């Protein structure tokens, strides 16, 4: 009370003086605060740039592949010795001989068995399948000869891309002087070139880095995501609508709410264990199948979607609800015709972010057998499949040098998908969001 009287003695001046004395300090504090913010953003950007640079720097070379143009004689005696044109027999023919003959015809002076083996090793063993596919595509080739571009082995590829240093002493690199001489000779003849690596986008996994591709993992991810979306979106939205619009506020709904928030924070491996116990052991669903992966990821994304949907339902102003009810709409009409459409952009954003998280997840899939080496492209929800992040993990763990660039390239593909999904979320929000 006594202070009040002291201040009230000269009220105007005292306050102004106080403000004037403090103003410089307050401006300085604000500037500091802004600088802290800028530093935080800048360092985040620098780290992101470093990450992208390291990934792109390592991975861009995986999009091209060294290939060799081989002369191939599609000899009837090799492809179809019985002359039956039976496709099953032709599938088992010794196509390896065709590419080996091809490369040897380019170096006729290599005669010793040992040297020939090394020479054959320049060409990827996948060449035989490529020749087979060419024959199956166009059977009129049989009996003729032609030229075909086939992939070079991973060591040749690494040398051409400069990832194996040819100046090292011979004992310290995986490519011998003799092989380098052959490679240089092929290059001089225009028979060796780096071409676009379409196999990387169309093949399944392989132990041969030059044949390994991400298509199997992309299809697996796609199938898994379809299951996840088809289950978690309707379930999540229905849960949110019920809790937000219909449920009474009592102890039970409080418990449910706490549990949903809790679920969102559970480590994802726990969902994998749950999936193993429930879907595989109890329901007897197949191991490694996208349907199980989708179910497990549904459990993981549900809380995210429910929370996002509830928040966006909450942000629809009560006046809309009251107006609808006042005009005679039933509660369900109010929800489906008015509230839900207005909340949809927010719900979709939450869903996309939840799906993005599910797309990058490996831990829960480990327990249900989706961390596996799978060559065949999955054809349905029950076929064994793997997903993109798992493919990255498997390649990162391989000994061959050529898998390093492929790992980074696969990360680039995964990041592209994530960026597209997040951009879609931002776009949807910007386009449809209403501000009240």
């Amino acid at each position, binding site marked *: 009370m006594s202070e009040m009287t002291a201040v009230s003695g000269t009220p105007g001046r005292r306050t102004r003086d106080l403000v004037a004395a403090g103003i410089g300090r307050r401006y300085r504090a604000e500037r500091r605060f802004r600088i802290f913010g800028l530093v935080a953003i800048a360092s985040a950007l620098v780290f992101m740039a470093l990450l992208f640079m390291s990934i792109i720097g390592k991975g861009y070379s995986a999009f091209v592949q060294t290939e060799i143009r081989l002369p191939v004689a599609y000899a009837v005696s090799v492809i179809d010795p019985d002359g039956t044109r039976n496709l*099953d027999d032709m*599938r*088992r023919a010794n196509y390896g001989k065709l590419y080996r003959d091809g490369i040897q015809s380019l170096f006729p002076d290599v005669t010793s068995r040992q040297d020939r*083996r090394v020479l054959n*090793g320049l060409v990827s*063993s996948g060449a035989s*399948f490529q020749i087979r596919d060419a024959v199956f595509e166009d059977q009129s080739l049989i009996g003729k000869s032609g030229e075909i571009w086939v992939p070079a082995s991973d060591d040749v590829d690494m040398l051409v891309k400069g990832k*194996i*240093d040819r100046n*090292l002493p011979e*004992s*310290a*690199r*995986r490519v011998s002087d003799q092989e380098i001489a052959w490679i240089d000779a092929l290059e001089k003849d225009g028979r060796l070139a780096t071409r676009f690596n379409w196999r990387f986008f169309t093949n399944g996994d*392989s*132990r*041969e880095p030059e044949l390994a591709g991400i298509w199997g993992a992309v299809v697996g991810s796609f199938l898994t995501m379809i*299951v996840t979306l*088809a*289950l978690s979106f*309707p*379930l999540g939205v229905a849960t949110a609508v019920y809790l937000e619009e219909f449920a009474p506020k009592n102890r039970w709904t409080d418990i449910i709410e706490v549990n949903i928030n809790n679920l969102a924070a559970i480590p994802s491996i726990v969902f994998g264990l749950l999936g193993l116990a429930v879907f*595989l052991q109890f*329901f*007897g*669903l*197949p*191991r*490694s199948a996208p*349907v199980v992966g989708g*179910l497990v990821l549904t459990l993981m994304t549900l809380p995210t979607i429910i929370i996002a949907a509830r928040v966006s339902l909450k942000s629809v102003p009560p006046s809309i609800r009251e107006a609808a009810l006042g005009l005679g709409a039933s509660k369900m009409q109010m929800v489906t015709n008015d509230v839900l459409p207005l909340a949809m952009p927010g719900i979709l954003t939450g869903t996309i972010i939840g799906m993005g998280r599910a797309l990058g997840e490996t831990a829960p899939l480990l327990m249900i*057998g989706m*961390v*596996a*080496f*799978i*060559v*065949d492209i999955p054809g349905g*929800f*029950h076929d*064994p499949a793997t997903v993109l992040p798992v493919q990255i993990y498997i390649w*990162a*763990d*391989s*000994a*061959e*040098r050529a898998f390093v660039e492929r790992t980074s390239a696969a990360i680039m593909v995964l990041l592209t998908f994530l960026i597209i999904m997040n951009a879609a979320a931002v776009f949807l929000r910007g386009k449809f969001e209403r501000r009240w």
Partner: protein
Amino acid sequence: MKRTLAVAALVTVAFAGAAEARDQIRIVGSSTVFPFASKVVEQFGKTTSFKTPVIESTGSGGGFKLFCAGVGVDHPDITNASRAIKKSEIETCAKNGVAKITEITIGYDGIVVADSKKGPEFNVSRKDLFLALAKTVPDPKGGDKLVPNPYKTWKDVNASLPANEIEVLGPPPTSGTRDAFTELVMDHGCEEFPFIKAMAKTDKKAFKAACQAIREDGAYIEAGENDTLIVNKLVENPKALGIFGYSFLDQNADKIKGAHIDGIAPTFENISSGKYPVSRPLFFYVKGEHVGVIPGIKEYVAEFTSEAAIGADGYLPQIGLIPLPADKMKSVKDAGKALTVNVK
């Protein structure tokens, strides 16, 4: 309504076909055998009309656990292992109805201790490795008692070694590589001390603890199961040593070099002749109950045991498998052909 229908349809799709028969081989097991088995699987899938088998890398122990869980389409047909099946695992198998098991040896794998090319040459004995890595060691001042490992540098362990600090990156206890390393290096190294060896008779538990416990004061760093990671760390830190399978040394010969152990270099020739002391056989196990039920098992085994795969000039030795000697190769091929039950 439409949405409800869609969900119902999806759930039906999900649960139908659960009881479907399987027409694809399923393989689990060791991460060491994984690169070799996956190569065979790929070859098998491309050259036969069977579907390509699916391999999961679960570790040897995890593989046996799944393999022995029972008979039927839900259980794997084959498990890979970097160690032989244990008695307790055979019993579990038998309890669950898996009685017809064929063991097939595919070759050898060397475990190497390597460092960066820029690092010093290492020529260690197994005793040195034991002294450098064990949790407790015989008192350096003499006397038959164990003290917590006091050694800080390799020179402390053995005056002929470089004065670098002891820093070893190796596999965690769950790994088969670690099991083999403990058995082949640590056990062997500690038996060179007569009083510890004597403990084996009097106090088995203390003997095991003395020989197999690895120090936890930061000198031994568990680097996970990812050997590529260890190789990269060695390149960055030329003073560190790493422990991993031979194939990683073979693939990265321009960056790292293997230490001589007991005077023997870890080369292809030395491992295959058995001279190099730290090598172990690799196996796979076939479930006899599934042969003839799941299509392709016989053919897959034939591909794996063929000359083209595990022979000296085969495609597996090219990626680092150490082939079997000729006499053993024949018995392996016979076992593969007949699928004789040889695990009891």
